[in-house]
């Protein structure tokens, strides 16, 4: 049963995108302020993908994510306070500080973890999709992965098995044109990752990943097919990340041009969407601003929560290894 594009759905998508953007910008700042240890891979620029897909999903539907996972968790319903606490390495974080950015997760909302292994998600999502079918639910599993990840053998094996068993899995390729600092043309001889779908007996669809409505519609179709037992889809969303591969300014490498970045920013997914909302009189400028303001207030409170939370005790090291 596909969700139809009502005003409330549009507002929902918008809210998710804003929440991701604001969270990520704050996270970037906090990292630069030395508050967040480790590696941070920001999702800014790609918000339309997570939001356009996730609006179709319930907490019983699962997703797998990547190293660039905050956006997925936010769009899936993750709470800012527990997320920031995790990024800070605090005991109150979603993973009690054991996972951090690269393993942030919340199984209660069906988010099976960010993953530090490129290509780590597809086999797990395939397994979750199998589980959904095996347990005779109508749930789907959505697997987010990058253009770079599409070259891992794990993607191939998972896609083949999903196609073979007609599993309710949507392989959402977030093609941002780069795997770290390597442009797509230097990591694969194809332009559309979706061209691989035919090899697994599933449809391959390409959409504009900066256009949340396009993502929403294509994802809706794929998810409806999956829920109907018609098997997986490979949905490729062409998108772009605004910040560097890791952190905000990264290593200062010149692997892409300012012009290219500027060109993509002209089609910023949130600005595009907000113009549309205003043009179509679905939300006023003030209403839009209110979403941003509420989000920022929630972030302030979440930062407060994270900063005032305790670090885990050393004794926690040996806990949670086994059930």
């Amino acid at each position, binding site marked *: 049963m596909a969700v139809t594009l009502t005003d409330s759905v549009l507002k929902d998508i918008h809210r998710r995108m804003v929440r991701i953007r604001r969270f990520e910008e704050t996270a970037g700042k906090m990292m630069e302020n030395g508050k967040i240890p480790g590696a941070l891979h920001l999702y800014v620029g790609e918000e339309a993908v997570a939001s356009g897909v996730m609006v179709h999903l319930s907490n019983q539907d699962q997703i797998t994510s990547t190293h660039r996972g905050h956006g997925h968790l936010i769009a899936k319903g993750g709470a800012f306070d527990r997320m920031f606490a995790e990024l800070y390495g605090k005991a109150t974080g979603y*993973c009690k500080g*054991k996972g951090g950015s690269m393993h942030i997760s919340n199984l209660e909302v069906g988010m099976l973890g960010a993953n530090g292994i490129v290509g780590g998600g597809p086999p*797990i999502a395939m*397994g*979750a999709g199998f*589980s959904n079918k095996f347990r005779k639910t109508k749930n789907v*599993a959505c697997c987010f992965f990058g253009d770079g990840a599409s070259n891992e053998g*794990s993607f191939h094996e998972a896609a083949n098995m999903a196609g073979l068993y007609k599993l309710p899995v949507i392989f959402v390729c977030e093609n941002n044109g780069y795997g770290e600092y390597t442009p797509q043309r230097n990591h694969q001889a194809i332009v559309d990752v979706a061209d691989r779908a035919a090899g697994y007996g599933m449809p391959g669809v390409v959409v504009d990943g900066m256009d949340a409505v396009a993502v929403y519609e294509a994802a809706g179709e794929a998810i409806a097919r999956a829920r109907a037992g018609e098997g997986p889809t490979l949905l490729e969303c062409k998108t772009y990340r605004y910040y560097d591969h890791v952190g905000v300014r990264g290593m200062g490498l010149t692997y892409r041009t300012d012009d290219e970045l500027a060109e993509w920013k002209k089609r910023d997914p949130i600005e595009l969407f907000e113009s549309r909302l205003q043009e179509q009189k679905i939300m006023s400028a003030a209403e839009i601003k209110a979403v941003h303001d509420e989000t920022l207030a929630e972030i302030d409170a979440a930062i407060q929560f994270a900063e005032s939370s305790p670090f885990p005790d050393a004794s926690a090291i040996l806990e949670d290894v*086994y*059930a």
Partner: protein
Amino acid sequence: MAEAVATPVANKARTLTYVAAINEAVRIVLQEQPNSFVAGEDVGGAGGVYGYYHGLQKEFGADRVFDTPISEEGIIGLGVGAGATGCRPVIDLMFMDFMGECMDEIANQLAKMRYMFGGRATLPVTVLTMAGAGASLAAQHSQSLEAWLCHLPGVKIAMACDPYDAKGLIISAARDDNPVFVVLNKMSLAMKGEVPEGAYTVPLGKAKIVRPGTNYTIVSWGRMVHECKAAAEKLKAFGIDAEVIDPRTLQPLDLPAVIQSVKKTHRCMIVHEAVRFGGFGGEIASQIQELAFDYLDAPVARVGAPFSPVPFSPALEKHYVPNADSIVAGVKAQLGL
């Protein structure tokens, strides 16, 4: 501490082969646990290349016992994803040698997911796999790689030396809420032994005194347990009355049982089929000398395979795999007999 030698069981015992015992165990698991399924290469239609799963697809249906593509990373991933979302997968990894194909899925996902998520994921996944040399299957189908798993927090490892243990360990593994590897041995497939009917468990983390003895301790697992028993008989001629202990699981490891024995016997040896260098024997030997230093009359000895891949030719392989004679030779060298 170690279990008594003759494990008393309520059920009537019969004689079954190792393969039949595995088959029975998996059948019980499928009966007991509605969310369990068996997935692996050729486990469905063919019933497994060694027949472990014979008849199970017919009995439980192709939804619950099914063939996978030749995709080991995908297969373990199926276990991780399904295990984390309400299923209790039983995954067949045909040969232990193929762990290389799925080691990321094992080491970085299966073993770590629970910990990385702060204890908020549970992975009741059983992996059955087959180790061992002796069948002239050469370097890529004969390895004993349990050391890779033992160094990996988050998984448990059981080594099934006979039909009784194979059945009991598989049932324990499947009832456990953690990833558990049950390592089988290809040279034991036709071995017969008493196996009670119905469900019983061999507890994970409890060693078994396979042969009681008074003045020497041999710790071994998997098929080597039988070579150690044979060696113990031969050692009688040298005044050695060896106690043979099979830890049965390497993680959790019943070290107290080993230490208790060594404190009594003062001399000991670890025997495994894996390459000696860097093998798990090193861990046990180290712990023994740490925990029973003052009780040792001789260094802890170790017997394992030499430092080479497994050779194909039977003429080489028979010298490669440890056996009763090489164990006896090791004891004699250790004690200067």
